[in-house]
């Protein structure tokens, strides 16, 4: 049925679930519908119930830990958290563990990463909470297995989920909200099934050209497109799916957190991670960066060193983000590059502030040329780190061996300058277009413009899917 992607079947399934959920405003009814649809969704993905046993065990382990912490055995919280982390790493078969200890039978792990974050969040919050509270098994399962967030997130906090899902008076759902959500579904569908698919083809084409014995200028162009296409592909693929699930959840009267905020507009790598996979970076900032910084600040008394503690904490946090993405050594490097990127960025900020003064640095950070080049550099660095995201060592070796170091340097320079120019032009164009306003706001975001936009994208998406007549492309982030 291709339900784990942004397929037409998944969209229809979500819309039917939303219609049924809205048959009553009662929270019991809405919870029942969400539970049944989530279980049905899980059953369709797993095909055989027996494959779900390890996942069920993981959920039980998390709930058992939660109950213990809730009953005041707060000392058990650390052990529960460690047990959950270990079982997660074991079930995901991380390659740093000995292979002999893994289960030999096939089992279902789709969505396990996102469940893991939700379970850990519950355990940490329960241990930190001064007020005793109880989360029932029903609420726990609804939160962890919610079909809208199961496959690729976003990672929602429990209090936000409970606020909407268990509200006596659910959040309103009028025609304007419905219209906006339908537009968002169309936009998401277009991103995954048209835009991402085309960008993927561009990257594949580039890879094939590099491997061929074509003239050097062809290979340089191919290398350029291989670098540039993947970040845009990943954005279209992931954010498109997120658009769809956020819209479906909103139609079911639950507001999911945003996961993207125009990431390629970021003028620094630190800013980039405030805009890309926001819920993941927020989760790690909350549960890794903040506690680690607090601990280090308590232990390091030197005032001169304190600004640099953030550098260390950022490195650890974003190294973990990178490592979370996969089980192999390529993702370790990916983690080092992510952590290194934000750490160097933080160091640069601290250093410039020290030599220019706070005011001088603030002035520089507002300079449009500085912002444009920073944006280009951010994009180029992210594109560079992506090599360890989509390729294995064999492919990376072949890629770097295809052209010389000098040629690669030229290509990266071209990527930086092009990204600087193109993204700056895009920002300018966007601002110019949004400056056409009526009394209700920008013309381009008016409901009439949105209808035209959604209808056109819908038609194009329909034409392309009809033309290709193939299953919807997979969502990259479901693999993590």
């Amino acid at each position, binding site marked *: *049925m291709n339900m784990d992607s942004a397929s037409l079947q998944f969209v229809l399934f979500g819309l039917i679930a939303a219609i049924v959920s809205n048959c009553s405003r009662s929270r019991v009814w809405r919870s029942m519908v969400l539970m049944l649809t989530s279980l049905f969704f899980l059953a369709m993905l797993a095909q055989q119930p027996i494959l779900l046993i390890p996942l069920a065990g993981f959920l039980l382990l998390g709930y058992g830990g939660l109950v213990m912490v809730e009953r005041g055995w707060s000392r058990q919280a650390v052990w529960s958290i460690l047990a959950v982390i270990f079982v997660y790493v074991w079930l995901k078969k991380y390659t740093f563990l000995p292979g002999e200890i893994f289960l030999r039978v096939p089992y279902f792990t789709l969505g396990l990463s996102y469940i893991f974050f939700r379970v850990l969040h519950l355990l940490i919050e329960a241990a930190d909470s001064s007020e005793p509270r109880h989360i029932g098994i029903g609420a726990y399962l609804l939160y962890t297995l919610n079909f809208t967030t199961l496959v690729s997130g976003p990672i929602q906090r429990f209090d936000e989920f409970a606020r909407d899902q268990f509200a006596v008076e659910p*959040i309103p759902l*009028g*025609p*304007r909200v419905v*219209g906006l959500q339908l537009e968002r579904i169309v936009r998401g569908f277009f991103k995954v099934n048209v835009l991402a698919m085309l960008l993927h083809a561009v990257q594949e084409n580039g890879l*094939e050209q590099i491997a061929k014995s074509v003239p050097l200028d062809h290979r340089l162009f191919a290398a350029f497109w291989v670098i540039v296409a993947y970040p845009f592909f990943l954005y279209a693929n992931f954010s498109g799916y997120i658009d769809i699930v956020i819209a479906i959840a909103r139609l079911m009267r639950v507001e999911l957190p945003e996961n993207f905020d125009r990431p390629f507009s970021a003028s620094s790598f630190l800013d980039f991670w405030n805009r890309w996979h926001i819920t993941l970076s927020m989760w790690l900032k909350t549960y890794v960066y903040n506690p680690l910084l607090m601990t280090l600040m308590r232990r390091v008394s030197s005032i001169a060193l304190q600004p640099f503690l953030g550098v260390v904490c950022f490195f650890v946090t974003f190294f973990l983000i990178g490592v979370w993405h996969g089980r192999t050594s390529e993702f370790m490097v990916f983690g080092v590059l992510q952590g290194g990127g934000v750490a160097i960025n933080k160091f640069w900020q601290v250093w410039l502030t020290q030599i220019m003064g706070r005011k001088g640095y603030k002035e520089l950070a507002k300079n449009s040329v500085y912002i444009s080049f920073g944006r280009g550099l951010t994009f180029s660095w992210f594109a560079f780190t992506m090599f360890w995201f989509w390729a294995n060592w064999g492919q990376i070796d072949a890629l770097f061996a295809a052209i010389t170091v000098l040629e690669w340097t030229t290509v990266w320079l071209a990527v930086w300058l092009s990204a600087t120019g193109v993204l700056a032009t895009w920002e300018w164009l966007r601002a110019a277009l949004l400056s056409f306003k009526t009394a209700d706001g920008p013309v381009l975001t008016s409901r009439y413009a949105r209808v*035209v936009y959604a*209808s056109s994208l819908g038609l*194009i998406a329909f034409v392309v899917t009809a033309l290709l007549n193939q299953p919807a492309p997979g969502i990259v982030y479901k693999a993590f």
Partner: protein
Amino acid sequence: MSPSSARNLQGTREATLSRKDWLVLPTVGVLAIVLLGICSELIAKWALPASSQGLSDCFAKDDPTGNATAKPNSVCSEQIAESPYTAEYRFDRYGHRAGMQLLSKAPDTYRIVMIGSSFAMGLFVPREMTFAALLPAELSKLTSRKIELYNEATGGKYRGGPFPTPGPPIQFNEALSADPDMILWIVTSNDFVTASPDIPAPQLASEVVHESDNQSTAASSSWSRSNLLAESEVLTEKIRNRFDQTRVALLLKHLMLESETQDQYVTSYLKNEDDAGFLRSEPGEKWQRLRQQFEMDAAQYEGQAKAAGVPLVVVFVPNRAQAAMISMGRWPTGYDPYELDKELRKIIESNGGTYIDVLDDYRTVPDPEQNYFPVDGHPNSNGHAMITRFLTRELTSGAVPALRVTSSQQMTMAQER
């Protein structure tokens, strides 16, 4: 005011929509779709122009079988959207795009009668660019003999037959009556499909759809077995078919196929089991049945040719995807682009015919799929030139003694090119 009630109030405000908007917004949406559709179609028609009238004018309109040859002495022309040329079809008194009048053969002339389907007929390509026109000139130059080629191949109404189609013995006798020194039979994978005598081409197409429906129904869950879904699938199929007839669809497919790498093209082609079934290393039941039928027809022709003392030479010309696979030199497990070729050689040689293999020649050409019309699938003018080169090389390499030339002559010819 609590945050929750503030959110609710905001939502209530959001929920309102004026009466005017209930009418205007859907109208705007529909207008946007219609306008975009019309504009796209106009742009596509401008980008890929095609003639409104065509080859079908040369065929009887009331022929229900679709197997009739063209009207004698008729002339018509057609430009398909993918071709830069308008192809003229000039049929002789026997309804063949022969390129010559069938007169009694001069004593020093070696006459080849070519049979086959649309590839051999040169569908959508001006006659002077087809291999039917180019081959005799090349062979004459190389062998220093006067060689003429009388082309009896025809696309037919459904761009299929007549070789092999229902009633082949009569049609094959027509080929023999042209006083040939050799009959050259150009076979394509599509000819296997049209070989089934009891299933005219359009019915076969519907059977294919039906089979695939059955397969997908069997594989899917009980939900998809419901009548409602079956009806919606039929509707979707109708919409898709309707869309496929638009110029926008053609333009998009054309651009997509043209820009795809060999790997991408072959991968997506093989996903369509109906089209790619003949490329399987172990053909399915449908293809086994089609091969058996083809074998019977081939045995019949070879018997007739043998009785008349005319050598029958058979060549298999690959389709676009097959050519790409051979050129790449690799293909996914479970597929083999040489499988049908090997089978065909076995069939032809077991009945005493001569089989000429040109598939290996495709290995020497980078991106041979560019020599076909991407969507339509027939060879374009470059494709016909390429086939001419291959046929010339193989026909003169010794498989046909009367056309044999020395390797030095072949080398000279190659250098001249």
